[in-house]
């Protein structure tokens, strides 16, 4: 189980690295004053340094409240979390699938799959909702708004 202290330290680490990277890249863009005002790296450099500064502040704050934060648990690997991660995976697959098999097919598969995982067990209901919803999308986006939704790769 993770606790708030460890998570904070992780955030501190990530932001320190990001802040430094931003500041370094910005410095490379040039921060001196030019004909067009401050160089393009000026503002991002300030941002990178600020991020670093806030990371340091957060580090100090975490160390100061070390005992208190260690006691606060952050749930990252309970069964409930896992179900959330599963959903993330399904959504990612769905997104990729849209651009391979086309929108309508991928959405139909996703809806059926997701509803089932969320506890729907009445298959008639699942199918009904899926079909009605897809029809709604088709009428709205396809016919009324003329917004083209991705087609299957083999149709393009």
């Amino acid at each position: 189980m993770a606790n708030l202290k460890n998570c904070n330290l992780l955030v501190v680490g990530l932001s320190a690295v990001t802040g430094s990277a931003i500041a370094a890249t910005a410095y490379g863009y040039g921060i001196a004053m030019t004909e067009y005002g401050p160089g393009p790296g000026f503002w991002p450099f300030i941002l990178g340094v600020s991020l670093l500064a806030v990371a340091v502040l957060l580090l100090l704050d975490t160390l100061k409240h070390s005992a208190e934060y260690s006691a606060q648990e952050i749930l990252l690997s309970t069964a409930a979390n896992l179900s959330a991660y599963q959903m993330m995976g399904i959504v990612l697959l769905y997104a990729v699938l849209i651009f391979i098999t086309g929108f309508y097919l991928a959405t139909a598969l996703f809806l059926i799959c997701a509803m089932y995982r969320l506890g729907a067990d009445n298959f008639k209901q699942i199918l009904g909702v899926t079909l009605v919803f897809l029809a709604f999308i088709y009428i709205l986006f396809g016919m009324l708004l003329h917004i083209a939704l991705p087609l299957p790769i083999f149709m393009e």
Partner: protein
Amino acid sequence: MRKYKALVAAMAVSLSLGTVSAALAADAYPSKDITVIIPKNPGGGTDITGRGVINMMQQDIGKVKFVPVNKPDGNGIVGMADVAHAKPDGYTLGMVTVELDIFPHQGKTNLSYKDYESIIAPIAAPAALIVHADAPYNDLNSFVKYLKDNPGKVMMGNSGVGAIWHIATLAFEKKFDVKVKHIPYPKGTADIAAAIAGKHIDGCLADPSSFKSQIEAGKLKILAVMADTRTKMFPDVPTFKELGFDIAIRAWATLVAPKGTPKEVLDVLRASAKKVSNTPEFVDYFLKQGIDPTSIVGEDANKMMEVDDAMYAEFLAKIAKEGK
């Protein structure tokens, strides 16, 4: 359960039948909806122009719909690339702007005007020299004199470094051998209008449509336009050419098809565009919005894009050599 399975099967069959029949339809062009990719955000100048033109062409051709699609990604390059790479069957068209002639010389893309066949360029807005009405100069020459007396102090607005109006101002500096301070207003010419009206900057070189109401109210004045002929909107304003300085910079938008589109298809589109652009409704639509409509069709538009491309190529190379 069986009822639902049957329902699903029926839907699948009908959907696939529908797609097959659409693919088999091979009538005269156009026989299905035409997609027009607009590489800008909805509501902007290029978008409104494009939608206006295709709306009128749709009413003229009658049989099919023109469907505009906005693709502003990557400063519009993604949208323009999509048109260039689309199947040249006349069912995918697009709008391209003058940036097509500028970006390749700034190293931003490999696309160029050569990837397209023009249908019509409905607008070609010239850069107009606009200053505040209270300014002490009333024509181009006195403005240039003022600039020479105050090098590097006069603030001229533009819509972004490297964008068309900035380049117009650079060309102006070169032509008259003067120096101004360039102040970018990345959100567009409306902000520049507010800035000049509020006397925060001294002037700009930009297309006059955003400034129309201020000019007509007498708050701003327009000294000259960088065009070959006087504009319909401000027929009293001289061109740079008339005053002895041959410089013409215009921001155009062209409706194009990908290169390789068959001639019959292009002819249908160009004929419709030509007809539509000579109607009073067309002229009215643009004039009322403060845009000077043009009717540059087909090969003429191709030529315009080519000429401007050569000009920007030469100019930007010169600028690069001198090290901005």
